[in-house]
């Protein structure tokens, strides 16, 4: 029990003292998660909107596939991305194996089905009368799209939040694709895994606390947006 309490105390010390190694992992985490979230939102929101809004043959089957992809194991994604971007893989020429963009690619694949499926779900749950209501003003297709997006904004925020949660807490992709290289591709989660393995609980707890703080900050800003929107 003592080592846990001691770990928490040392964690605060590391954070307040601005430990370089700790902050390097934090920086790497924020960088890759921002990159992967940007990619997954840009691709996931329009595709999720289309999936929830339009009716087309095979929609149910496609929906089932996307829902299933939400549960993709991170180590499997890590394996696939590793195979794709390794020097023998089809994307080997990009040279992004053991780099932050490589991790971001894997994390985007992880987040994409989450964003798409949850966006589709919020569009589907939107009052079906909204489309008729908007068309009753004689709006253009573009405005119809953007107004509908605005009407489901909180659903989309929740989709993004869920995806962000998965991205920042995954270990498999960062470890396999990034290689957990100190000062370079070491993220918070891979650092926690490494430090715990070495018995360095204090660093692990410090990094865990930072992860919690990031999640708290994201949630806090979302609630602020909802309240003052």
């Amino acid at each position: 029990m003592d080592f846990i309490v001691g770990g928490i105390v040392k964690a605060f010390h590391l954070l307040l003292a601005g430990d370089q190694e700790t902050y390097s992992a934090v920086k790497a985490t924020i960088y890759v998660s921002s990159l992967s979230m940007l990619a997954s939102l840009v691709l996931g929101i329009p595709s999720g909107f289309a999936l929830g809004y339009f009716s087309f043959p095979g929609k149910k089957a496609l929906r089932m596939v996307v829902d299933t992809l939400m549960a993709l194991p991170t180590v499997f994604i890590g394996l696939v991305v590793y195979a794709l971007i390794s020097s023998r893989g089809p994307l080997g020429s990009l040279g992004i194996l053991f780099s932050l963009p490589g991790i971001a690619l894997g994390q985007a694949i992880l987040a994409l089905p989450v964003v798409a499926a949850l966006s589709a779900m919020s569009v589907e749950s939107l009052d079906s009368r909204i489309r008729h209501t908007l068309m009753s003003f004689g709006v253009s297709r573009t405005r119809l799209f953007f107004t509908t997006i605005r009407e489901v904004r909180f659903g989309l925020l929740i989709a993004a939040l869920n995806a962000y949660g998965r991205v920042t807490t995954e270990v498999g992709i960062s470890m396999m694709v990034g290689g957990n290289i100190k000062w370079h591709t070491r993220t918070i989660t891979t650092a926690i895994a490494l430090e715990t393995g070495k018995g360095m609980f204090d660093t692990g707890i410090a990094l865990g606390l930072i992860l919690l703080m990031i999640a708290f900050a994201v949630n806090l800003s979302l609630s602020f947006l909802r309240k003052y929107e």
Partner: protein
Amino acid sequence: MTGALFEIRRLVHRYKDRTVLEEEFLDLEAGTITGISGPNGGGKSTLINILGLIVKPFQGTLTFKGEKVEPFSPVARGRIATLTQDASLLSRSVEENVSYGLRAIQHAKDRKARVGSALEAVGLAPSRFLGRSVKALSGGEARRVALAARLALRPDILLLDEPTAHVDEHSNAMIRRAVLHAREAWGTTLLISSHDREWLESISDRTLTVFSGRIFKEERVNILAVPYDYETETHKFGGTVDEFLNPLSCPPPSGCFSAILPASALHLSHDPDGIPADAVRFHSTVSGVFLSNKNKMLYATLLFRDTPLSARITASQAGTITPGQAIYAYYHPSDLSFR
């Protein structure tokens, strides 16, 4: 531009394999009010959704100001507005809802003034309602805000599907006043569907009856439920009066079919002995006497149980009947037409 403001030609709309609306020819003249009545499921809302360019018809052409239009046509943007029966509000403030249409057509010039006057037209004080969230509105207020959003556009054509359904008396009166104001102030052409035939008759230049996917333009018509014998495949004219007019009195296996009876074929009599023997007769109550705006004919409105009916009457008959009076109504089965 020549011809009517809105022209509908060879319109057919299908839902799966079922034809739900069929009309060869319908014109809406500029500045007129057209009323639509008819039973639920007859095609009123489908007609309004098609004319409001919300639903694309299976077949047929719609011409607005001489140009063919369909959903999303730029020429109709902001010029044709529809208050659908199930119109909902956006999850924003009242002001944002009422100004939505104006912002959609990028009308910025007098947007604030238009929003304010539209709210006033429906009896909602802008100072109290502009900043209010739609979640804080009652059902009647929400309906009025939805109407104000259409009025703010000052459209050429305003289509209203049951604008006064499910609202309180006060909201009902405000909506009716605002609708008529739109025509007086901006010359808006109105097409209004309502179950309140007396109100429709009193404000409309003409009243259409939509029944079983067809539009009856020429005369007020009554829609009756007629027993049908599946064994002999005939309509049972020898049944009781209840069977003819009350669908609930037609249990399986007989069932009921709906039939049209023109108001001119429904006759009234104080004397039961004066009614022809082959006529179907029933006792009803007079609810009012009206002069049709369209054909300048006199009509008596009747109630048989809860079924409202109309009978064309002569001027001399009008002097002998008063609202609340019990009277015999009768018709000849051969005057019924089935669809």
